[in-house]
């Protein structure tokens, strides 16, 4: 009896001790929060090296894009401790900095000799700085991204289609360099029979719920001359947001939606775009560059069948593209900030960044993207580089959410529902945005 009691006590002690030890190990684990998408899987793979080097375990909290902002902004607003590190969207930076959600990284960068000059300038401004264009850093550029286009190279190279296209439009069928050309190509392919299947011109962003139609419309509007504000007088939007050029840009986006998208594509964003392209429905596909590695590998549409091109030029030759991507930040409510900073230091390393790119992530480090071998490293690498050189981003103000909701509504009402005119939509947008900035006391 005594011996069995001893055995029981011994077992209990052993179990208790092992649980305690494992709890100690888990206490050091870091949780990284991000969107659930292909690059996140690459980051999981990459982070195994960090655990090997430091012994710090990594846990991940990935949320689908449609709930990403809701979920993590709620987490930050409620001062939650779920995330030690967060890869937050570029537009969150203003709010996250002003509301104290992110740890300011300037001192850490100075101490660890991490220089922002080593990163692609647009990504530093877009993902790290608040206020913009000031040396106040809240994130390390983590995932470069930009809206660009893919096209069906195999369809474009069909001799009979090339001949017919040339006869109809007078120029050679190929990746468009202007939006007018893009629309002509889209019209040409719309409802065409290819390999016994009806195909459509282009997949573009039309999603209403989160940010889709704004990202898509802005991607066109920038090159048409749209400006968020008077460059000489901040927050003055009249005549800039709703300029004649902007109106023409929005009219173009609606015309493209009306003429050349697949039936029912009224709520389409990244996932729907990828589906449309992968299923061979569309000749061209607007999407963020993060989708390209996956499409390149696709058995049906990847390899030699896919090509990439930079966002085309507007009527005056201006050429811009909508910035995507994110920086990685340390959450100020985390109890493990020291370990989280170790992760940032490790992530900024050149070798890690090179591996990040090879795994499917988009590095923002100059040493990686300016390497002479980089353009040839992937079929889409040059397009990515060219696109990153012409980026513009949406407001990154603390009030980015109501600003975004206003543009989502105004653009969707006009482009998809056909209510009112482009001028009405943009005038309404000026009114809505003015109200937001007045509420913020900025006007």
């Amino acid at each position, binding site marked *: 009896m005594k011996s069995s009691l001893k055995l029981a006590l011994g077992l209990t002690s052993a179990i208790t001790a092992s649980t305690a030890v494992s709890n100690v190990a888990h206490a050091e684990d870091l949780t990284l929060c991000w969107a659930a998408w292909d690059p996140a899987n690459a980051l999981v793979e990459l982070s195994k090296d960090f655990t090997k080097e430091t012994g710090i375990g990594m846990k991940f909290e990935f949320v689908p894009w449609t709930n990403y902002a*809701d979920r993590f902004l709620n987490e930050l*607003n409620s*001062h939650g401790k779920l995330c030690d590190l967060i890869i937050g969207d570029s537009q969150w930076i203003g709010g996250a900095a002003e509301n*104290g959600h992110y740890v300011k990284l300037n001192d850490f960068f100075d101490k660890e000799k991490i220089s922002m000059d080593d990163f692609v300038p647009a990504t530093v401004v877009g993902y790290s700085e608040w206020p913009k264009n000031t040396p106040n850093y809240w994130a390390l550029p983590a995932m470069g991204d930009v809206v660009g286009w893919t096209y069906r190279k195999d369809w474009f190279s069909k001799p009979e289609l090339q001949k017919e296209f040339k006869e109809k439009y007078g120029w050679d069928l190929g990746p468009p360099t202007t939006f007018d050309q893009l629309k002509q190509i889209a019209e040409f392919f719309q409802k065409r029979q290819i390999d016994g299947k009806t195909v459509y011109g282009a997949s573009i962003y039309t999603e209403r719920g989160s940010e889709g139609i704004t990202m898509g419309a802005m991607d066109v509007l920038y090159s048409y001359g749209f400006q968020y504000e008077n460059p000489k007088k901040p927050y003055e939007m009249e005549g800039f947001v709703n300029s004649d050029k902007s109106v023409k840009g929005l009219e173009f986006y609606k015309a493209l939606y009306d003429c050349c998208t697949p039936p029912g*594509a009224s709520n389409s964003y990244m996932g729907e775009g990828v589906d449309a392209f992968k299923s061979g429905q569309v000749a061209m596909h607007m999407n963020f560059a993060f989708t390209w590695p996956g499409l390149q590998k696709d058995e049906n549409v990847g390899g030699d069948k896919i090509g990439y091109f930079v966002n085309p030029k507007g009527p005056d030759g201006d050429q811009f593209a909508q910035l995507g991507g994110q920086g990685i930040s340390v959450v100020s409510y985390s109890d493990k900030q020291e370990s989280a900073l170790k992760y940032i230091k490790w992530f900024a390393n050149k070798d890690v960044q090179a591996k990040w790119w090879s795994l499917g992530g988009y590095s923002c480090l100059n040493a990686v993207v300016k390497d002479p071998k980089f353009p040839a490293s992937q079929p889409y690498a040059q397009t990515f580089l060219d696109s990153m050189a012409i980026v513009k981003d949406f407001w990154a103000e603390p009030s980015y959410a*109501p600003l975004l909701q206003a543009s989502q509504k105004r653009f969707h009402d006009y482009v*998809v529902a056909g209510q009112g005119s482009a001028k009405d939509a943009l005038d309404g947008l000026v009114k809505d945005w003015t109200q937001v900035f007045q509420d913020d006391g900025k006007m």
Partner: protein
Amino acid sequence: MLNRTAENVARATPEPLARKVRGISDKGLAWLFISPTILLLLAINIFPLFWAIYLSFTNYRANRPNEVVKNLGFANYQRILGDKDIWIAMQTTAHFVFWTILLQTLIGFTLAWLIDRKFRGHAFWTTLILVPMMLSPAVVGNFWRFLYEPQIGLFAYAISFVTGIPPTNIQMLSNVSLAPWSIIIVDTWMWTPYVMLICLAGLRSIPEYIYEAAEVDRASNWRQFWSITLPMALPFIMLAVLFRGIENFKMFDMVNLLTGGGPGSTTEVASITLKRQAFESWRTGYSSAFAIILFVAVFGLANIYVKALNKVKQR
């Protein structure tokens, strides 16, 4: 048996506790039993309601915890009542509530009346009709989205088969005119069985002897329906209308899953607008004011309706 159990419990109760319990009046004991529920209600219902009323007079934003909260008086209410988009959302809601209730009541009552005939296999048909109601709205929303798909959806092909219109032209969720109806169809499909069940209960509660007396008086079937069936089932029908009206006034899940309020804002019902203001634009004070307005509207309408229902019952 029950008495013996009670005696056993009483005997098992420790003397000091028993003395205390004996000292409590019946009313006190009743309060003791319901107090956990009351406390829970206060914590999760009443307190948030009063807190929301307070917030509705401020500029508070949940995503700016560090910002100074200012008292705005009735500014939020004025802004909401003067906002054209809010009124459009209210009209959309009213349109949705009206048509869903009308269709569900007509079809639900007709089905109940048919089931009440007790034909052969009526139990099987009753079960089959109830299936949509048993499904989760998330599942219903998702599979109807696929059914409505213009390229692969069964719905578009069925309509195409009947009308000859190409299925790709039948864009239920993308077309401004069709999108509101696409939601009405799904809601009617899902909730008509519920209305049918309530109406069936009403029809089954009508005593058989009244019909027998009407037969003796040689009343026609039509006359029996208008003079007996409908008036006696009316309180049940009105109850079903009340339940569905309240539910549909705050409808969110189906609209969110099917159209997300689009295309444009054509299916943006009040609850979608409220969610956008509260959890996407983070205008907590403003959205609290909107929630209070909606609450007062539903509460007021429901009260008027319940009074009418009581009058009908007393007749």
